[in-house]
């Protein structure tokens, strides 16, 4: 995610609602590479990820009038629109496309980096995941993994069961319990 600064997402969305295209362009300039990364992890193919980002930005533009800052922050709203567009896409197009070569390589790179990070000495700098950080840490690894595979990789229950070599019923129960524990931890 971009470095925090004083970019005002709520104001940008309010400007979109008033028909100011420059505001949409500002959001795009600032967030498109992060949002495309989020979409690509879910839909797995770059071509579809760009289609999803296109549709999501059109939706952001058209639905900016419905954004209500009292209900939540503008940045989160933008990410939700993109994730929902991507999730609707994968759930509507039963996913049988293989992970393309480039995405596969990128995923492996990331895994290597994560492996490196997970083996580093404690006490090194961490990006702050906020309260989610400590709460995820407390989950049993199996439950945490299911939640991350679902949220970040857009995996269905069945796909998670396949990837983790865990019975479907166990995956569903882990997710239920993991989510309940997260909510209790973060309340």
């Amino acid at each position, binding site marked *: 995610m971009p470095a925090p600064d004083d970019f005002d997402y709520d104001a940008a969305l309010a400007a979109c609602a008033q028909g100011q295209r420059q505001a*949409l362009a500002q959001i*795009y300039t600032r967030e498109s590479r992060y949002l495309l990364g989020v979409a690509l992890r879910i839909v797995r193919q770059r071509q579809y990820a760009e289609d999803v980002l296109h549709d999501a930005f059109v939706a952001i533009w058209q639905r900016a009038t419905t954004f209500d800052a009292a209900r*939540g922050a503008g940045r989160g709203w933008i990410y939700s629109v993109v994730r929902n567009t991507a*999730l609707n896409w994968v759930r509507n197009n039963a996913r049988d496309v293989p992970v393309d070569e480039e995405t596969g390589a990128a995923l*492996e790179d990331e895994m290597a980096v994560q492996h490196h*990070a997970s083996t580093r000495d404690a006490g090194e700098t961490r990006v702050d995941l906020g309260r989610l950080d400590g709460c995820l840490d407390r989950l049993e690894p199996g439950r945490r993994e299911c939640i991350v595979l679902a949220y970040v990789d857009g995996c269905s229950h069945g796909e998670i069961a396949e990837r983790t070599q865990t019975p479907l019923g166990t995956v569903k129960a882990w997710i239920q319990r993991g989510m309940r524990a997260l909510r209790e931890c973060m309340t």
Partner: protein
Amino acid sequence: MNPNTPTPPPDSDDIQSLAGEYVLGTLSAARRRDVEARMAQEPALRDAVDAWEARLLPLTALAEPVEPSLSLWKRIERSVASPAAAAAANVKRTAADVQTWWNNLNLWRGLAGTGFAAAAVMAAVLVVRMQAPATPQYMVVLVAPQDKAPGWVVQTGGRQQEQLSLIPLGTVAVPSDKSLQFWTKADAWRGPVSLGLVQPGKALRVPIDKLPALEANQLFELTLEPANGSPIDRPTGPIQFIGRAVKVL
């Protein structure tokens, strides 16, 4: 307690569970549509969805950034300017769009290695296990000799057994008349072998089928060399990053 209450209370497990799985993304297409329709009528469900979205949002940072192709913003601009055109575009992607995407594959390839630094630190708390064959066999972390700051990770194994990947953890500055050259040397070898020139901030993939199998403690380093690399078969410039292979599986 009235067992006939038509709408469950906002903090009921049913509402929370449904909202949580909606945001998590595990619901089927039909159930997603159902939740979206119900949210308009049920403030409690909508509140629960909002709260879950806020709770899980930090996880989006685990997705590595990917630079969109240059044509994407133009496409969005066209669609926003003309909603009818957008609707048409959604139904039928033009051949031109597909062409554009293919043309940008090279751009994408070049960018595949960028942006992993954020994921690296993030992953201090989260390790996502991929399918077993993708597990690295050796791990090498290349650090700067002075301050020991990690700069690159070397990975072998995975789906491409015959290749080695050098992955940047960040970007490094290299003077325009210089280059970074990647070397390796196992303990018993007489001298180092060049694995090629490295673009700062970009992943490098090296076929290793011509090399002896990687071994524990094998040395890897990046040295600063003339623009086209070392003129001889060993490093001539200062070491920028260095590390040794550690067996991890």
